[in-house]
């Protein structure tokens, strides 16, 4: 690859995850050649496939083979969770680096296979954890690294959002791997992984289906996960889809860290201008665009052929937390985390 003579080519496989829109915009803004294809089924009333590609201003190709035949330098997988493995492996086989939407897969074995396949193909795998790039999280990490917390005791994380009902696969057990536990535990688990530099050891979780019960949702919509780390640090993650539909913003993520010498709470999505409009309360976010920062990291890694951060292995470790949480909900007991990456 010679970046001085040709622009980067990035292929997008599936438009199932709405994040595809932000990723496409970021790529185009950086002068990247972007093309992609979508995979059915589509939800009624949603814009997908060639129509969505046209709106986003990216080239639409007929199928996955057609995308990979363009020899993309990198591929972004924004498919339903259960399809990540199949599409990522196809991309690796075509020699492409992959940015995979989170969670990296629905089954730990799939996630592990993806990391191994990337290694075998000599390409890299990045997991889409944009909150890693939040300036507030970077400050938190810097303060931890500088020893300002003393010894860390406990972390409380929340990742609450509106239920993503416009894409029905999010609430389909087979396609998504579960509900709120699958959708919202991994972001905080990833931040904890980076912050603590150790792998979660034991998980207790409880979940319910009270939120959105009237819409026939069959997966868990509320949940709390309690994690123990080998060093003794304790953590919880509230992953509930508890942001009401009437709220002026999608939801948010917070992380609060307590140490022997200091405490810090971050709310990376707090920056906004509030007000009232014709529809009630308004929320206009400002500050860093985390998706753009993440795309920059992916393009940088692809262009320089270096390992991206966050990589595929943290995708495996964070999925292992979700897997333990799901087992704990079933057993009613704390469960060990089986992470091998």
């Amino acid at each position, binding site marked *: 690859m010679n970046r001085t003579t040709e622009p980067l080519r990035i292929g997008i496989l599936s438009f199932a995850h709405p994040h595809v829109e932000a990723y496409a915009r970021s790529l185009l803004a950086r002068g990247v050649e972007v093309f992609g294809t979508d995979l059915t089924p589509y939800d009624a009333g949603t814009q997908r496939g060639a129509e969505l590609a046209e709106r986003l201003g990216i080239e639409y190709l007929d199928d996955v083979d057609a995308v990979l035949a363009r020899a993309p330098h990198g591929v972004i997988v924004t498919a339903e969770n259960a399809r990540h493995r199949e599409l990522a492996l196809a991309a690796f086989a075509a020699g492409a680096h992959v940015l995979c939407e989170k969670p990296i897969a629905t089954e730990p074995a799939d996630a592990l296979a993806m990391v191994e396949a990337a290694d075998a193909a000599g390409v890299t795998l990045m997991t889409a954890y944009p909150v890693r790039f939040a300036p507030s999280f970077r400050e938190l990490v810097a303060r931890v690294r500088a020893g300002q917390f003393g010894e860390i*005791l406990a972390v409380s994380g*929340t990742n609450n959002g509106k239920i993503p009902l416009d894409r029905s696969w999010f609430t389909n057990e087979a396609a998504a791997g579960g509900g709120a536990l699958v959708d919202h535990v991994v972001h905080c688990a990833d931040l904890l992984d980076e912050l603590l530099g150790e792998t979660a050891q034991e998980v207790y979780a409880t979940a*319910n289906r009270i939120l959105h019960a009237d819409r026939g949702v069959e997966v868990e919509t509320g949940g709390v996960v309690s994690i123990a780390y080998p060093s003794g640090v304790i953590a919880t993650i509230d992953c509930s889809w*508890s942001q009401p539909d009437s709220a002026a913003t999608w939801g948010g993520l917070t992380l609060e860290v307590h140490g022997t010498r200091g405490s810090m709470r971050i709310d990376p999505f707090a920056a906004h201008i509030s007000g009232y409009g014709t529809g009630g309360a308004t929320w206009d976010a400002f500050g860093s665009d985390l998706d753009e920062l993440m795309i920059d990291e992916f393009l940088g890694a692809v262009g320089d052929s270096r390992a991206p951060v966050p990589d595929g292995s943290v995708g495996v470790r964070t999925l292992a937390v979700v897997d333990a949480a799901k087992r704990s909900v079933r057993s009613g007991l704390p469960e060990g985390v089986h992470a091998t990456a």
Partner: protein
Amino acid sequence: MNGVAPPMTTPLRVGLIGAGAISHAHVPGWLALGARITVYSQAGSHELAARYGLEVAESLDELWPGVDVIDIVTPTSTHAEFALAAIGRGKHVVCEKPLARTAADSAAVVEAAERTGVRLFPAHVVRYFPEFLAARGAIAAGRIGRPAVFRFRRQSAAPQAAWFFDDAVSGGIVMDQMIHDLDQAEWLGGPVRRVFARLQRRGGAVAPVVAAQVVLDHESGLISHVHGTWGSPALPFSYSFDLAGDTGVLRFDSARDDTVRAVFPPVEPGGYLPETSGAESPYSVEIADFARAIRSGGPARVDGADGVRAVRIAEAALESIERGLPVEVQPTGEVDASTDDTLIGARA
């Protein structure tokens, strides 16, 4: 006078047992009612008396004859003994939370008060904080629909008195600090059936800090989680809640209270006593409620059964921490006279 609650005289005659930090929160409430206070304490009684204009009793025997109500503000492990002694002399009892160090002792105190016919009020002051009362009203009004996921958070610099870190005396952060929000979890969300908890303590004996996290499953299906921290000296006192139901969410964070903005040179770092944001101290509102209940014979916002229940849940959390496993909690035995069930949507 034995076995019978004395007739109320005016002014109210209060015997305060203990003169530590929390006594400063209780005394103004009694004084505002025109009560006459006599304080007995192993230490600090004369200083407290001088500051607020109280009488001093040099012994319990000297204290009992001249008072109608005993207010216990001593370390937790002594609550039951003082409460039983006061009840045995026919005194009404106000007791700082937790009602006793164990649920069994708490139940014994409640039983003794019922048998003797005196009133007993565990001082769960958070029930008198207006934001929690507002939340209870909003839930009752159906604002959030069916409760789904509640979270509570309470933090401050670690208390300086060593007994707070002696589990045998205080029960630690779970029994002393988090009991406030464990009580709120049931007051706002209905009965709990299962408890899981983790606790982490660091900093050694010299500068201990501790954090604990309790996850509760309620009988209604509601999940609550409670976060408590006694942290570094720099950590200011704050508390928050986030109460999500299937049609809405209620949020409060004392750190975001914007009622007053004021800038002055620092007076003292940290501090673990709840600061009050409004003009009226929740402690004074609480004491006024207890005094009114004693005079009228009617219910107060918190009663002995509530006190037992809170200790029982805290005890289950401590057992969970010890065993590393979830602990089932027996359903509430008696209907709490002070709790209007129709106020709690989760039970509907």
